[in-house]
């Protein structure tokens, strides 16, 4: 009985959370000078999980994360990577301490990420769609 209550509360909370996220659109961006035009979700998630370090055209891909707690980061983890922040921490702790990988560098908020990505064709990041301008190219939107 109690357990059921907890579960239904969780379900309600989750619904609210997802609805809140759906309001803000997040864009995955690369520099306007990057040669790739559109990327699929699988490629983006492979880059952000360190499974590949290249864009489809063969150039080097370096993912950058927003700071922990940022709304865009929560949405990106949930929708694109399909993992909670605890699951991601556990995923990276398996790689960090084996020398087999390092998580994307935390590099600021929406505007800071956009400015960074604009300047370097090897970077890939995600920002709230409202900050996108001509200096960057949207390769995926959710």
């Amino acid at each position, binding site marked *: 009985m109690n357990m059921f209550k907890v579960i239904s509360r969780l379900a309600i909370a989750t619904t609210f959370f997802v609805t809140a996220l759906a309001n803000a659109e997040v864009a995955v961006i690369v520099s306007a000078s990057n040669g790739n035009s559109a990327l699929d979700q699988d490629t983006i998630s492979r880059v952000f999980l360190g499974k590949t370090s290249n864009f489809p055209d063969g150039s080097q891909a370096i993912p950058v994360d927003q700071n922990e707690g940022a709304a865009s980061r929560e949405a990106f983890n949930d929708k694109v990577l399909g993992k909670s922040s605890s699951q991601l921490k556990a995923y990276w702790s398996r790689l960090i301490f084996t*020398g087999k990988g390092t998580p994307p560098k935390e590099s600021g908020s929406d505007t800071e990420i956009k400015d960074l990505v604009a300047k370097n064709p090897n970077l890939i990041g995600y920002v709230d769609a409202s900050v996108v301008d001509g200096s960057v190219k949207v390769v995926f939107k959710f």
Partner: protein
Amino acid sequence: MVLRKSGLAAAVLLACSPAAFSDDLNINGFMNVNAGNLSTEDISLDGYDDGVSFDIGTLAGLQISKQVNDTTSATVQLISRGSDNYSTEASWAYVTYAANENTDIRMGRLRTPFFYYSDFLEVGYAYNWVRPPSMVYRLDAFSSISGVDVTHRFAIGGMDGSVQAYTGRYNEDFTLSGDTYNIELRRAAGMVFSLNSGDFGTRLSYHQADITLDADPSAVPNPLAPPADARALDILASTGAAFGVGDEFIADEDKVKFYQASVSYDNGSTAVIAEWTALDQTTALLNDDSAYLISAAQRFGDATVHLTYTAAEDELESGVVGQIQKNAESKENSIILGMRYDYDSSTAFKVDIQQHDEELVNGAKGESGLLYNVGMSLVF
């Protein structure tokens, strides 16, 4: 060679101000605070007794890595373990050379990649148990080795895989049932193959070495009346000699082989892993064995509930040798029920209850009992 120092506290303090370091110096740490308690001392498991013990499973680790140039980096992992009076040792200390984008060569003191969880064996945050089941996760004494390894990553179709090969040697004292022995592993080498496809993963590994162990039959002139301070393996070696099979009970560059296979599935909310291992050696001094575990976990928000069955069994040689080995024969199984709670994205609390059944201890019927574990794991 073990690097020792007891300045971990100072190092941890330093680690708290990462901004003070340049971009290419990475510092990461982990910590487990675990306590355990056995319901009865009729069984022995993981070194616990019927009083509460914190020291056995408590440890702190600090990893410092530095990118030296485009292709070379240096990594040191310092660990301070409660089971070792919190003295600090370098579990890992190696230089990585990226031969190309998909191939890394490491040289130095490495973690021996025996098991699925070997690479992050002590990073409690990375798994659900308070510690991986010790019936399968044995060979603790050899968990690090000095040598070289090569790891090559590849992708085929939608699958990611890697092949790792290593070679090295090991020479150190180790403690077995309270007795200390000197063990040397020469020409240690192994190969690990792993393949991941979506939520599925598989890992196969093979390891071998030539083992030399200083068991001494002459320390026990009469195996029926061993001296009070005689070591168990000295008595076993002497018993072998008394029955005319002394040569079998000597470990002098004898071949040891270890096999491992695991399959895993994890879709983010449901996870399953099955892992099987076997030890096969030419010396009769140590019994061959096989051990496996099957574990399932289900995540409910921040809580994960998991259930594991694990069993281990010795395999004896035939004839007189087997009759003597029977005196050290062991067969046991456990059921572990546990829960992990993710307090935040770098802290987890854990509770495990293990029902342990010793079917055979030194060839005789054993007892069963419970092990209670609580723990907290951090990464930073």
